[in-house]
């Protein structure tokens, strides 16, 4: 797999990961870190998504090209 393709795959996960879980959340239980599960799920994906995009930025050939 080329670096660019890996970037797209990670981006795909960062974008669809959070919405895909939403239909399955039917209850406020379990509370995690004091948050109802729906809210926790979203906060979790803020971190996961950011992490994934940092990774993408590290390996993205477009971003490297620009550093002079």
């Amino acid at each position, binding site marked *: 797999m080329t670096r660019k393709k890996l970037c797209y795959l990670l*981006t795909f996960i*960062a*974008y669809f990961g*959070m*919405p895909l879980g*939403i*239909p399955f*959340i*039917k*209850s*406020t239980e379990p*509370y995690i870190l*004091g*948050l*109802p599960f*729906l*809210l926790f799920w*979203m*906060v979790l*994906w*803020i*971190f996961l*998504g*950011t992490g994934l*995009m*940092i990774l*993408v*930025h590290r390996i*993205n050939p*477009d*971003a490297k090209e*620009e*550093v002079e």
Partner: protein
Amino acid sequence: MIISVGIIAIFLVIALFLGIAASRGKDMSLEQWSVGGRGFGSIFIFLLMAGEIYTTNAFLGVSGWMYGKGGVAFYNIAMLNYVIAYWLTPKIWAYGKKHNLLSQSDFFEQAYNSRILGTLVAIVGLVALIPYLIIQLKGLGIIVSEASYGAIDPKITIWIGTIAMIAYVMVSGIHGSAWTAVIKDFLILGVVIFLGIYLPIHYYGGIQPMWEAIEAVKPGFLTLPDSGFSASWYISTIMLTSLGFYMWPHTFVATFSAKSGNALRNNAIMLPIYALFLLFILFVGAAGLLTAIVPGSLILMSAATLLAKNVVKPIRPQTTDQQIGIIARYSVPVIALVALYFTFSGGGAITLLFLMGYGLVTQFVPGVVCSLLKKNPLTLQGVFAGIIVGVTIVGWQAATGAHLSKLFPSWPSYIQDINIGFLALSVNILVSITVSAFTRKVTVQNV
């Protein structure tokens, strides 16, 4: 009470001072004024973009929705636009830099080599922007009057806020917006996090006990309902807003102010951090004032640029660039006063237009994205027809209040609840592709 009025006043003065001082040492050509000479690094870009997302809507909307509708309000922190931003904004920026573009309409005009398309985009953009500005002003009045315990009349606040905005936008343009964004964010960071942690602990003995208390009083309030604002409404709305976010004329232009593509990529990565603040959003007077002023000033500036460069210029082609710059600046108070007028007099129509806003600007997506591809599959006629059809559907829906559940009562609710902007976008794409297929031979080459 006197203290809170004093704090609000002090921050307004600081904002005004910084906003005006921001132009010092720069010759304010139209390029400096509307896109900061394309010299903003990651931090300024971040503050501008973040200021845009978390507008008065975040202050009033999140706490209000949370109170009234429960779990659905969580969508405000469920942002995905940063993922799109990472790939899209550096491309828009590079194209803007290559062709010296100053507005979203310039982009369309250049990419499809058509002044008429540029003007169409300018007009749709203005129709979406003005109500957005009006909502900011209304929010400003409510927030400040609440924060001062009713001591300050909302009307006076709105007037003062608008005058401050006119002053620094006319003088400093986007530089002014960027600098006021700096103090706004320091305020939000400090006050909001403090109150967001302090209040639940003070009243409920902790954050989890607060949620549990809510769940006990209103069971199911913190999850999504099975129909109406259900999971499919929720997901389609998050996706629609993530696509539409950079299609607003003022956010589009803010990307032009970056100094490099990486400044925008870094911005995209940092944006979600800001979303965490929303967890703690509550009424905070001075911060509330600035949450209206920062996006308000950006809106004013891009509306003025659109009007001067993409509406006036095509009508009077002999106008020089210098004159366009002057016209842009003097349209600022005109647009602001029009918005003020509707803020004080407008009723339901404004809310209607505002609700349409995201649906309207999202119709620019196919035209923008396809023009960035190596070979543009769409033609000028295709994009033109697509935007017209998409905008018509959004407008028709808003005017008649039509809902998929009424049109197709037998369809399952997970389809009925999909945000109508999506339907408009799908039809738009279909029309664009179809018309493009028929007009392919007419257009000679891509730009």
